[in-house]
Structures are given as structure tokens and as C-alpha cells.
């Protein structure tokens, strides 16, 4: 056990920190999240990260990655959080599309997409959820019917981040009305510029439109764009979700660290009473719990190459911590908690964060589904009904 950086890690961290100091544009610092402001600048910043060699740190070198140990990726996310820099805009490409294509893609698919994902030339979105198929993903209805050398896609997807700026979509479709729902699904890589694709932003309770609906009307997707086999979409999708949760912990810790830091600054500024002080300390402790749980997971990942169940635990814990923390911030703002300008932190920062946090226990696997997963797969409890 050694919680300090190895010389190699220390060197990597030092270089990165210096690079961020020199290269992070001031207007990107302290980006509050949400879709609105980041898009224009996001691709340029992502490209800059790519050119400096900081994108795809753990990807194999043959696909344009750095082939570095996972600890470098952890350090990268920590340092990004510390400097309040935004992440690469292609989070779905990097975290989900890329690993899934590496696992299941043809050589053509790999060479078409992987390098462009890293360089932010291709932004990806995910087309899994549907209005009637949320937690129960396997009941999805978007149809893909083979017509010559293409699948013709009709249906509707929802809760799709980045769809309004995405170049490609990871689309899960039904190609067979098999009663065994998990079979009969096919995974397609869809060009978002295809005719018949329409994206409508879904306004959230924050007032911003971070997610989208995507409507597919007779969209033709070349057969070559099937990822994996026709009918094997469920298995491919599980790879995507495994990667979604497997690499999540550090990004969540980084996000929570930023929030805790701002919370502490707020508490100091407002000279809060003993009761609130104690609750601020609790949030800091919960952050450490998340951080060191991730380190345990990272150590296991580096030893075994397989992500442990900690991804689900981290998501559960982070979402509840972030919800509690942002409510605490509003309580510190006290009678000013309702003010969207002037009274709070700049432009309703905490109000935005607090409202946004309610989505944390819903998106990327509801807390209910995650608890089912931990109960069944980690604790071995009988399958919940």
C-alpha cells in the first residue's frame, strides 16, 4: 500500500499540471456543467488535449491511445478537476463508443472511428432509452428492418446527451420481435446526418436542454454499420454499459471534488454556524470515502484488468452525496436560496447544481436499478421482483 505517486506517476502529474496552467483558456475554467455554454469551445479544447497526448490514455497504442496504466487516467481526471477544466467533449465516444467498438468492431469500423473519437472530430451520443423503455431497456421498440444492404430504422429515443451536436449515435434497435426480449436486438452505428434523423432538445427542470429526443423516420443505415452480429445487440450493449460504469468512479470523484471545494469556500465566506459546519465536514468526508473507494477499485483494475462492482457503488454514493451537498449549499445561502442572480453565487450556480442533481439518481441507471444490481451480482441475493 502506497498512496503516494510512483516516480512515473509523479512525473506525469507534474507535466500535466504545468500543461494545464499554460493551456487552459480562462473562459473554460469553472464551467458549471449543463449543455449551453460549452459546445462552441468544447471541440477546440478537446483537440488541444488530444494534441498534447492526454486523450485515450489507457487505450491501446494501435488505436491511437497512450497505452498508459489506469493510474494515469485517474491522475488526469484529478488534475482536470483541480484546475476546474472541462473534460473532453466526447465523453460518450471515449467512455462508451470507443471501448465497445474496440471489443466488437470490425477493422473497418475501428479505423473509421477510433482515432476520430480521440481527436474530437467525431462526437457520439447514445440511443438506448425510449419513452416506454427506461429501466426496462430490453422492451425497446425502435425497429430496424433489413432492406437490401441497409437497415431502415423507425422509432424514438430519449435522454440522449450530446445528440444535438453529435456526429454518430450508438443505436440499439429491434430487428426481430422475438418474445424473448433480449434476443432480437441489433446494435447500429448511425451517422446523425442521415436523412430522417431529427433531434429535439428536452428541456430539463434546470431550464437547460442537456438531453434530447431523437426521432428516426425511415433512416437508412448501411449493413456494414452493424456492431457485432445482427441479433446480438443486447450483449454488445452490456459491454457499453459495463464501460459506462467501470470508468465512472474517477470522473464522479473529480466532479464531487469541485463541488466540495466550492462548498467549503461558500461556508467560509458565509461564516456558517456549528451545525452547518459539521454538515460541510460530512460532505468532505463522503468525498474522501468516494475517492479511496475508487483507489481501491483502481488498484484492483490494475491488478486484474477487470473492473469490480465499485462502479455501481460509486454511482450510488456520488449521486446521493451530490444531492445532499447541493441542498446544503442552498441552506447556507439561507434566505437567498431562491435568488438566481445577485444573492447567490454567480448566476444561480448553486440553484442550477441543486436542481440538476435530482437527475443524478435517475440518469445512467436509476438508484433502484443499481441497488438491484449490487444485490444480485455483488451480494448474491435472490433475484428481486
Amino acid at each position, binding site marked *: 500500500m502506497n498512496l503516494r505517486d510512483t516516480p512515473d506517476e509523479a512525473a506525469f502529474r507534474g507535466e500535466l499540471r504545468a500543461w494545464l496552467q499554460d493551456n487552459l483558456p480562462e473562459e473554460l475554467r469553472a464551467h458549471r456543467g449543463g449543455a449551453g455554454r460549452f459546445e462552441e469551445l468544447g471541440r477546440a479544447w478537446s483537440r488541444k488535449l488530444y494534441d498534447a497526448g492526454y486523450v485515450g490514455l489507457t487505450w491501446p497504442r494501435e488505436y491511437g491511445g497512450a497505452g498508459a496504466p489506469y493510474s494515469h487516467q485517474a491522475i488526469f481526471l484529478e488534475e482536470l478537476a483541480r484546475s476546474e477544466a472541462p473534460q473532453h467533449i466526447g465523453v460518450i465516444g471515449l467512455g462508451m463508443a470507443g471501448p465497445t467498438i474496440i471489443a466488437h468492431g470490425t477493422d473497418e469500423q475501428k479505423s473509421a472511428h477510433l482515432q476520430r473519437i480521440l481527436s474530437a472530430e467525431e462526437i457520439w451520443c447514445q440511443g438506448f432509452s425510449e419513452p416506454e423503455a427506461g429501466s*426496462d431497456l430490453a422492451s425497446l421498440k425502435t425497429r430496424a428492418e433489413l432492406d437490401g444492404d441497409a437497415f431502415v430504422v423507425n422509432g424514438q429515443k430519449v435522454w440522449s446527451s450530446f445528440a444535438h451536436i453529435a456526429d454518430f449515435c450508438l443505436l440499439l434497435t429491434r430487428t426481430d420481435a422475438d418474445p424473448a426480449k433480449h434476443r432480437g436486438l441489433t446494435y447500429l452505428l448511425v451517422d446523425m446526418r442521415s436523412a430522417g434523423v431529427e433531434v429535439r432538445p428536452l*428541456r430539463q427542470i434546470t431550464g437547460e436542454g442537456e438531453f434530447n429526443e431523437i426521432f428516426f423516420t425511415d433512416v437508412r443505415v448501411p449493413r456494414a454499420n452493424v456492431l457485432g452480429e445482427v441479433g446480438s445487440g443486447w450483449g454488445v450493449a452490456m459491454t457499453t454499459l459495463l464501460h459506462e460504469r467501470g470508468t465512472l468512479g474517477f470522473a464522479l470523484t473529480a466532479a464531487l471534488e469541485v463541488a466540495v471545494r466550492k462548498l467549503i469556500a461558500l461556508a467560509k465566506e458565509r461564516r456558517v454556524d456549528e451545525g452547518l459546519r459539521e454538515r460541510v465536514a460530512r460532505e468532505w468526508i463522503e468525498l474522501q470515502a468516494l475517492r479511496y473507494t475508487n483507489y481501491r477499485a483502481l488498484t484492483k483494475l490494475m491488478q486484474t484488468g477487470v473492473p469490480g462492482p465499485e462502479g455501481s457503488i460509486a454511482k450510488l454514493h456520488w449521486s446521493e452525496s451530490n444531492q445532499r451537498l447541493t441542498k446544503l449549499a442552498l441552506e447556507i*445561502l*439561507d434566505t437567498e436560496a431562491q*435568488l438566481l442572480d445577485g444573492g447567490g453565487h454567480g448566476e*444561480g450556480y448553486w440553484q442550477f447544481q441543486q*436542481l440538476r442533481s435530482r437527475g443524478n439518481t*435517475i440518469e445512467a441507471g*436509476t438508484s433502484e436499478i443499481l441497488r438491484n444490481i449490487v444485490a444480485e451480482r455483488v451480494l448474491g441475493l435472490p433475484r428481486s421482483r
Partner: protein
Amino acid sequence: MDFAFTDEQELLRSQARSFLAERRSLEAVAEREGSFEPGSWQELAELGWTGVSVSEEEGGAGLGFLEEAVIFEELGRVLYPGPYFSTIALALPALAGHAALLQRVAAGELTATLAHAEAAGPRRLADTGGLATEARQDGAAWTLAGEKVLVPDLGSAGTVVVTARSGGGVGLWSVEGGAREPVETMDSTRPYGVLRLDGAPASLLVEPGSGEEALAQIRTRALAALALEAVGVGEAANALAIEHASSREQFGRAIGVYQAVSHSVVDGYVGVELARSLAYWAAWCVAEGDEQAAVAAAAAKAHAAEAAVAACERSIQVHGGIGFTWEHVLHRLYKRAQWIQAFEGFAPVLRREVASALLDVSEEESTELVQQETPVQQEVA
């Protein structure tokens, strides 16, 4: 011992509920993005709601706070975006004895609010320390100078009851002028405003020196009113959760069959029912002028605001993604619940006030509160 509304009060409730469902439903409020439609105020006045506690001679119904309580709860259920809370809970008590103003309120011709907080001065009604707005008398005429923040419904209020300091101490004046600046709030149905007074003409409502006492009474009424509103908000959020849990299917079944869903809905329901008991208790204390009114109102508001917020959060979670969208009405309930929660202090602030009443008193007084906090026994003693 009778802890039920009278038949007349229940009739008022059912009339209110059906009127609001038809004319001012939650869905309709959402369609207008929670903005106030001035015409709606006259409708309320025609139903007699603006004059419930105004005497019959002054054009009101001559009823009391229990009838207003019914209205507060029902308006909370549909998030009525007009200045009813500001006019009836915050301003009306200060107008007592001013027949002309009372008549205009009862007739629906005048809306009102209360301006007390200041940027560098007091933030709560319970506090007048550092109050800097000044009242000056020139013959019979008064003028006020100062700046007030966090004024609820300032944009839709006709007259503003303003706290200020003069040689004789803190008093209350009414002002129609001054510069008003709207402030954007999370809950758009009840925005705040900033009021700047630079020698604005004012009418004296409450004598200098009596302001603190008037504020204390207003505060107790306001806390009780907000507790009742919170019950309405929480009940509406629960109703949406029950409806969704019963109809939404996943994995081939209504999601309400899953205990992770149904038990959460139950906890939301239980919380609001307990809050309802406290809110009705507080309402009765206010209506009766009971000496426990201040503690009861603080306790009820602390509990009910938390219950309403929790009910909204549970409801959003039960709804999943759709409950997180702007188009769904839930976020509006949630934002109002949070407005209520922040007004005059979050629950810990109010609970500390209750703690003082329990712990910083003699053995005998504390025994009074603990054992006899139920007014049931007062006639025995």
C-alpha cells in the same frame, strides 16, 4: 375535543377545489409558465377569498384563519401564482384598523405585500437589528427612505407594507411608490423584488415602537400559512407519484408493485399527513390566538416544508426521466416547496427556536410545553 373542519369549512374546501381544478389548475399554471394573470385576482375576490377574515362591515366575510387555512392549502395544491400569501398572510394583519384599505383588499381592488429584509440589515421577520430604512414625519405626512430586498410578489402587489425606523422605534407604513426591481427566483410563481424608497410618501399603519410586536404576529400567521401551502404542494406531488406508479409499466408490470417505488411513495405520503396534522394545529392556534401559536407555527413550517420537499423529490424519482423535464409540472411544485423552505429560515433555524422554548425555560414552563402542549387540557388547569 374536535379536530375536524366544520361542515361549512369543508364546503368551502370542496368549492375551492372544484373552482381551482376548472379555472386555475396546476396544468394551466404550467402552461402560462407560472406567471400571474391579474384577472385571476378578481375571480378570487368574487369567491370571497380576499376578504375571508375581513369584517362584514368592511366588506369581508368576517370569518377567521381556519377558513383562510383552507384556501392556503388549496392554492398551494395548484401553485396559484398570485399574491395571495403576500396580501393575506403578510400584509393584511398590518392593515387592521384601516377600513379603507381593508375594504379594497376584500373587494379585490388591492393586492399587497410586506417589505422588511434589507441587504445589510435584517433578513428575517424575527429580527429588526440593523434595520436602516428611515421614516420621517413632516406634519401629518410621512416619507420613507431605504432599500428593501427579498420582497415577495413585489411585482404584482398594489401597496407595500414597509418596516422602517423613526424616533419612536420600528413601525409599519404603507407605500405605493418607490422604484421596484424584479429579482429572478427559482420558483417563478412567487418572485422576489427589490424596493428602493427615496423619500416616497407613506401612510402610517403601525405606530413606531409597536413594529416588533406586529411583525411577530405577522410572522406566526405567515409560517402557519406556509405550512398549509406546503401540505397542499406535498399532497399534489404525492398524487402525481401515486398516479405514475399505478400506470407506468416496466418489466411488464406497473412500477408500483416494486417496494423500492411503493415504499418511497408511502414515506412521502406519511410525511405529508404528519405535516398536515401540525399545520392544522398551528392554524387552530393562530385562529384562537393561542399562546402556543408561535411555537406551533414554527414547528409546523419546519416540518411541512421538509415534508413537501421530500415528497417532490420522491415523486421526481418515481417518475424517472420524465419527472426531470421542464414540461412536466413536478419541478414547479418542487421549486415552490423550496421557496417555502427558504422563507424565514430552513428547518434547523426554526427548530432552534423551538429548542429555546423547550430548553431555555424553567422546569415549570418546560413542563407546560411538553406535557400540556396539547391545548386540550387548558380548561382544566
